[in-house]
């Protein structure tokens, strides 16, 4: 079965056309002397074309190792710019890269690691309009994205183009990895037919992530990509690997191909790419914008003025205790999740200003409090980040 995958992954015809220079023989000597890779395997690696979706936490380590291993062509899809909060885990980007496009930064490092790799850059958001065209030039797709719409898009495009989808996903200190989209194996939709409604599952930006975790999971993905190219070993097809970094436990669950799967089942109903934002119930920025428009807001400057004038203002901080430790403006701390059961701590006759980090959670808090009958409650626009920008430049941002 594994050989079948390999023949599909990189065709023998393409492999025949490539050869190694003496410099490359020297560079890959530790591969060449092991029977599991050898000259045949190294030529397969050189002939292989792997597309990495995202050059962030997962994309960083996997692109670096695939490049070092001698994968001939690496495609990179990203449209983002390196920022300071990336550096804790996105190791392909350096401190001096902050502000640069991630694609340029990543391509430069890959070239430095291995000049024999051809890098193809796609500086764009992956969409239903461009995915099939981009996928066309590659044998394997490695999914290192950070959101549900792109996950479903990558899955469906892989199934439709018949390319394996090397999947990895992380949250805080837990990760998942698998190989989807092979002919015999299940796809992401077999596992999760539908995405969670927006807001129910926190993102990394909200929930945080242990910096080493994308390294662990990204390298599991890199390992699987290499195995698919070589056609050796047991690929993670039909298996979901769960990584718990805190307990340092690896568990494995059986995945089955769902005959009723809408995209890879017997009678598929999804035969072309769809609108994945709609599928995931996301209407871009609109949702939060609409909500905040209807909510009463107060600017950080206005709040500062009121506090300085000793007006009666009750500042409610709805972040988590560990965020309060990073920085605070002396507000009364009730984490958003505890608000319903601790609402009695608040006095509805007072002017309440709710804040969080950026204004999203406190928007939900204001919405909740208004429904609970509070009329004098406002949301601090831009949260404590805006406070740091406009009122107290000494305050750390996170």
């Amino acid at each position, binding site marked *: 079965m594994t050989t079948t995958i390999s023949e599909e992954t990189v065709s023998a015809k393409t492999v025949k056309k490539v050869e190694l220079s003496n410099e490359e023989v020297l560079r890959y000597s530790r591969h060449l002397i092991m029977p599991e890779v050898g000259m045949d395997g190294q030529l397969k690696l050189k002939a292989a074309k792997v597309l990495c979706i*995202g050059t*962030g*936490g*997962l*994309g960083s380590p996997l692109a670096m190792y695939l490049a070092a291993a001698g994968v001939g062509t690496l495609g990179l899809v*990203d449209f*983002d710019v390196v*920022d300071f*909060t*990336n550096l804790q*885990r*996105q190791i392909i980007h350096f401190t001096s890269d902050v502000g640069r496009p*991630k694609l340029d930064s990543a391509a430069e490092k890959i070239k430095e690691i291995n000049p024999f790799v051809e890098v193809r850059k796609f500086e764009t958001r992956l969409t239903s309009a461009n995915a099939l065209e981009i996928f066309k030039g590659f044998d394997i797709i490695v*999914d*290192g*994205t*950070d*959101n*549900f719409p792109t*996950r479903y898009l990558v899955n469906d495009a892989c199934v439709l183009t018949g390319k394996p989808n090397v999947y*990895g*996903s*992380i*949250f*805080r*200190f*837990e990760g*998942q990895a698998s190989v989807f989209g092979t002919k015999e194996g299940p796809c992401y939709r077999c*596992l*999760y*037919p*539908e*995405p*969670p409604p927006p807001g*129910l*599952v*926190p*993102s*990394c*930006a909200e*929930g945080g*992530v242990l910096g080493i975790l*994308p390294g662990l999971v990204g390298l599991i993905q890199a390992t699987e990509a290499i195995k698919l190219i070589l056609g050796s070993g047991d690929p993670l097809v039909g298996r*979901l690997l*769960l990584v718990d970094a805190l*307990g340092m436990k690896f*568990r*494995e*669950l*059986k*995945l*089955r191909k769902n005959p009723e799967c809408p995209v890879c089942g017997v009678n598929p109903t999804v035969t072309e790419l769809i609108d994945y934002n709609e599928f995931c119930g996301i209407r871009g920025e609109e949702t939060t914008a609409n909500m905040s428009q209807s909510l009463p807001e107060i600017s950080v400057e206005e709040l500062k003025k009121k506090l300085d004038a000793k007006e009666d203002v009750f500042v409610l901080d709805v972040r988590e205790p560990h965020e309060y430790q990073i920085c605070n403006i002396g507000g009364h701390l009730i984490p958003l*999740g505890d608000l319903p059961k601790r609402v009695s701590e608040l006095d509805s006759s007072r002017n309440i200003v709710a804040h969080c980090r950026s204004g999203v959670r406190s928007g939900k808090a204001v919405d909740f409090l208004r429904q609970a009958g509070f009329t004098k409650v406002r949301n601090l626009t831009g949260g404590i980040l805006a406070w740091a920008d406009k009122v107290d430049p000494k305050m750390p941002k996170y």
Partner: protein
Amino acid sequence: MKIHIPTPLRQYADKHDTVEIPASTVSEALNALIMRHPDLRKHLYTAEGKLRAFVNVYLNDEDVRYLADKEATAVRESDSLSIIPSIAGGCRP
């Protein structure tokens, strides 16, 4: 039996990563779990009381959806139940 609570849902289960629950079937175990931690209910079940499509429940390493008796499957004390929700993070900001 032991029920594994995944990281994103621990905040609704008093921060526990595993919960020990006496039960004779899968559904009994899940019911006992949400009795003990009522905040979990809306994250696991729809308003109509159906298990949500983005939440998978595994008995040991098998998806409960593919067991012959599904949620009515009998369990032993040594079995473990895992709740596996979908996570999206690849972590670009």
